[in-house]
C-alpha cells in the first residue's frame, strides 16, 4: 500500500474538544495560514491526490463523545472521531445499526468515512451515507463552527450541507459532530451465490431479477479471482468456475428463507453452473471480506468506476480480459477493480485504464483512483475526467475556504505548484 507524503503530515494537532480545534484553526487562519490536513482513522489517506505541501494534520482522535443516543427516536448524535466499530457496538445494544458497509471499521472514524463517502454492497437495498446523515457540525478554515440539519429525521430548514459535506474529503470544513438516522438490525442476513458461463449471462439474469418476487438488498458480481480472494479471506467457499452473482437478503428468518427458496427457482431458469448458499455462520465474515476487498491492496492500483448498471457486465468483461480482478455493486453500477501484479509502472497502468475510462464515459460514468503508488498519480487522473459541475464546485470551495487551507491539492481542485517541486 502506498503511503501519503509523510513530510506533509510531519506535525500533528489532536484537540481534546471541538472548541479547542476551533481555536487552533482560527489562530492558524489569522497567523501562519498553514495547510491543514484533517485525519481520522488514517484508513483512507491514500485516497485522493497526495498531500504535497507541508502542513499540519488535525486529528479527531480525541473527539469521541457520544452526545445523545435517544434510541427510541432511532437517532444518535456523536462526535466525528468515534470509531465505526465502537459506534456499531453502541447501536447493537439497542438492536439498531447504521447500515453502511465500512472497511477497516476498527480504525475508521465516522468523520473519515463521511469525508470519503464510504459504502459497500448494502447500498442497493439500504442506500448510502447521504441517506442517514440528518445533522452535521463542522469547523470551517477560519475556525468558525457551523451546522446544518438537526436531530430530527425530517427537516428542510436551510440548505442541506449534510449532503455537501458528505464526500467532500475535508475540503470545506473539519466535520466534528454528526447526527444519524438509524435502522433496526434485521433478524437474519443470508447470501446466495450463483456462477455463470459469462458476464453476459449474468446481465440477462439481472434483467430478469428486476421483476423478481424477492427483494435482495445487495447484488454483487465478482470475477473468479476476486471470488477466491474474498472467500479465502472469509474462510468460506465460493464457486470459482465462472463469473459470480451474489444476492443478499435481510429480514425475518421466515421471510429470508422464503426469498432464498424463491430466488433459487428464478435462477434455475437462467442455467447457472453452481448455486451456493453461504452457511449462516459464515455470512458475517463473508460480508466483511466483501467490504474489505477495496482496501486489500497488495495490488499495484485500485480504481472505482461508476456507470449505468445495464453496462456494468460489459465493463467487467472488458476489465477481466486484462486480468483485472473486479467486484461490482451491480445494482448500482459501481465497480472496484485491482490491476494485476504484472503492472509495474504508471504508463502500463494508464494504458490499461484508458479504454476502461473511455467506456464508462460513454455510459454517464467516470473512473477514479482509490489507491496507487503516489508517483503514479501524476500520470493518472485521480478523480477521473472533469465533470461539467466542477467549476461550480470550485466556486463553493472559494466561498467556504477562500485561502484553500483545507486539504489543499488533494481533491478535484487543481493543486498549486509547490515551491519545492515546481
Amino acid at each position, binding site marked *: 500500500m502506498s503511503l501519503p507524503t509523510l513530510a506533509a503530515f510531519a506535525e500533528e494537532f489532536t484537540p481534546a474538544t471541538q472548541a479547542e480545534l476551533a481555536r487552533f484553526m482560527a489562530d492558524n487562519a489569522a497567523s501562519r495560514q498553514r495547510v491543514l490536513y484533517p485525519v481520522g482513522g488514517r484508513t483512507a489517506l491514500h485516497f485522493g491526490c497526495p498531500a504535497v505541501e507541508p502542513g499540519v494534520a488535525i486529528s479527531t482522535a480525541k473527539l469521541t463523545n457520544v452526545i445523545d443516543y435517544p434510541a427510541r427516536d432511532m437517532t444518535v448524535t456523536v462526535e466525528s472521531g468515534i470509531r465505526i466499530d465502537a459506534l456499531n457496538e453502541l447501536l447493537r445494544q439497542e438492536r439498531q445499526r447504521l447500515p453502511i458497509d465500512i472497511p477497516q471499521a476498527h480504525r475508521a472514524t465516522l468523520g473519515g468515512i463521511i469525508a470519503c463517502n464510504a459504502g459497500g454492497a448494502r447500498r442497493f437495498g439500504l442506500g448510502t451515507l447521504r441517506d442517514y446523515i440528518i445533522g452535521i457540525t463542522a469547523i470551517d478554515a477560519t475556525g468558525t463552527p457551523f451546522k446544518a440539519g438537526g436531530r*430530527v429525521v425530517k427537516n*428542510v430548514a*436551510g440548505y442541506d450541507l449534510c449532503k455537501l459535506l458528505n*464526500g467532500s474529503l475535508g475540503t470545506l470544513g473539519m466535520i466534528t459532530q454528526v447526527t444519524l438516522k438509524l435502522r433496526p438490525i434485521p433478524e437474519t442476513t443470508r447470501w446466495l451465490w450463483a456462477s455463470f458461463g459469462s458476464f453476459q449471462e449474468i446481465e440477462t439474469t439481472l434483467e430478469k431479477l428486476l421483476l423478481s418476487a424477492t427483494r435482495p438488498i445487495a447484488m454483487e458480481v465478482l470475477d473468479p479471482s476476486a471470488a477466491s480472494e474474498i472467500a479465502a479471506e472469509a474462510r468460506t467457499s465460493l464457486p470459482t468456475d465462472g463469473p459470480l452473482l451474489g444476492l443478499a437478503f435481510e429480514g425475518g428468518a421466515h421471510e429470508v428463507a422464503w426469498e432464498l427458496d424463491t430466488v433459487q427457482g428464478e435462477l434455475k431458469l437462467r442455467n447457472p453452473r453452481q448455486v451456493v448458499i453461504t452457511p449462516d455462520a459464515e455470512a458475517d465474515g463473508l460480508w466483511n471480506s466483501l467490504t474489505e476487498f477495496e482496501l486489500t491492496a497488495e495490488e499495484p492500483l485500485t480504481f472505482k468506476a461508476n456507470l449505468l448498471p445495464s453496462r456494468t457486465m460489459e465493463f467487467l468483461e472488458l476489465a477481466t480480459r486484462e486480468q483485472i480482478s473486479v467486484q461490482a455493486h451491480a445494482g448500482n453500477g459501481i465497480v472496484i477493480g485491482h490491476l494485476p501484479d504484472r503492472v509495474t509502472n504508471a504508463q502500463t497502468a494508464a494504458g490499461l485504464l484508458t479504454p476502461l475510462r473511455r467506456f464508462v464515459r460513454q455510459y454517464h460514468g467516470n473512473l477514479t483512483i482509490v489507491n496507487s503508488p503516489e508517483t503514479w498519480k501524476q500520470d493518472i487522473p485521480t478523480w477521473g475526467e472533469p465533470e461539467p459541475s466542477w467549476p461550480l464546485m470550485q466556486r*463553493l470551495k472559494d466561498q467556504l475556504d477562500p485561502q484553500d487551507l483545507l486539504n489543499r491539492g488533494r481533491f478535484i481542485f487543481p493543486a498549486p505548484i509547490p515551491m519545492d517541486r515546481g
Partner: protein
Amino acid sequence: MSVSTPAAPTFGHDVLRRLREIVGAEGLLSQREELLVYECDGYTIEKQVPDVVVFPTTTEQIVQIVKLCNELQLPFIPRGAGTSLAGGSLPVGGGVMIALTRMKQILEVNLRDRFAIVEPGLVNVHLTQRLKGTGYHYAPDPSSQGACTIGGNVATNSGGPHTLKYGVTVNHILGVEAVMPDGSVVTFGGPAEDTPGFDMTGLFVGNEGTFGICTKAWVRLTRDPAAYRTMLGIFETVEDATRTISNIIGAGIVPAALEMMDSGIIEAVEAAFHFGFPLDAGAVVLIEVDGLEVAVDQEAQTIMEICHSSGAREVRQANTPKERLLLWKCRKQAFGAIGRLSPSYCTQDGVVPRTKLPEILRLIIESGKRHNLRIVNVFHAGDGNIHPIILFDERDADQVQRVLHASDEILDACIELGGSVTGEHGIGVEKISFMSKLFTAADLATFLKVRLAFNPTGLCSPKKMLPTAGACGTEQPIVRTGVRAAM
C-alpha cells in the same frame, strides 16, 4: 461588496416585447386580472401580484429569459403548481415569474437502470400513473401529488406519507439539469451514481428556487412492494394515539406509513368521503406495512398488539385494495375537506423527535384553547412531522393575529423539544423569522456563502429562505412591514 435589493423594475412595453419574443404571445401573462391567480400559493396569508408570468416550453427559452433578466437586472422566480404551503412561490422580490407548467414531458423511462428523466412541470402523480403496471414507482408521494410538480418537489425536498420508510425527495433524485442564475446550463449527477466531486444533486434539492431553475430531473424508480396491510387504529384520545406511535417506533418497527388524524379532521373527511370513520373517536392512526406477502402479516400482527397494549379502542384492517385506496384518499385529501370546517386555514409543519409527539400535541391543544382558536391535526406521525391546521376567517383581523401567535408558539415549542420548524414545506417567506432561532449567525453566514456560489447577484428568488435581503452580500434582516399588519 454590498448591493441593495434589486430596485423595483418597471415593466415597460419593451421588456414585455422582449419576453414575448422568447416565449411567444401565448406564453406570457401581463394583464392584472390574469396575474391575480399568481398572487399567492397554498400559503394564502401573504399576497403579491407578480409583474409578469412567462410559460417557457424549453430549457433554451429559460436560458434566454434568465439572460434577459440579468441584462435588465430584473429579479425572477420559478414556480411549479403553486401548492407551496410556505409562500415559496410568492414573488416577494417582484420581477418575472417563470412558470414551468408547460414543461411536463416524461422524457425517458428506463426500467433496466431504474430511472426516469422528467421535465420540471410534470405533475407528480402523472409519473406514478405512467409507471403503473411496470413493477416500479416513484416513491415520494406528497399529499398534494395530484397537483404539485416534480420541479417543485425537487426545490422543496418534499415528503409525503410513505417517506417514513422510503425517504424524502432527495433520496430519490439522481441528477438535475438546471439553468443557473447567470443563464448557464449545468447538469449535476445523472443516471449513474457517485459522480466524482461534491454531491451537488443532494445540495441542490431543497434549495427553494434560490440556486436556479430545475429544467430536468433524473429520478430513481423503486420496486413496488409485493403486499400491503393497511390498518386503522382507533383511539379515545389524541394522547393514546401519539403514545402508540412512539411505542411502535420505539419497538424498532418502521412501517411504510404512520399517519394521524384527530377528531376535527375525522369529522371533515367523513362528511366528504363517507368512509365510516368513528365520529366519537379522539383520533385515528392510519398504519401501513408493506413488503413480501410472507412478512406483512407478522409485522401487522406485532403492530396491532402494540396498538392494543397502548390503549387502542379498536384496530380495523382494510380488507380489499378498494378499501385501502379509499382510506388513502381520505388521508391525502384531508386538507381539501377542511373547507367544510372554516373559510381559511393555516398549516404548520413542525417536527419533533418521535417520542415527543404526546408532548407537542398537548401543547397544540393548550395553545388553541389559550387563543380561542380551533386547531385540527392530520400529519406524518411516524416522522414526528406535525401539521396543526389552524382554522380562521381571514376577514377577522383579530383572529388572524391570534393565528399568528399560536403558530409561533407551536413552532417555538418544536424548537424547544429539539425539533425543527419545517419537515417538508420549506421556509419560503413564511418561516424566515425562525431561521435565526434554529441557526446561529455563523450557520446562516455559511448558508449565504453557499447561495452566493450559485446565485451571486441575488436576482434568482430574492428574499427567500434566508433572513437576508437576498442580494449580493447584504445581510440586513428583512423587515416585512405591512405583511403581518395587513392581516
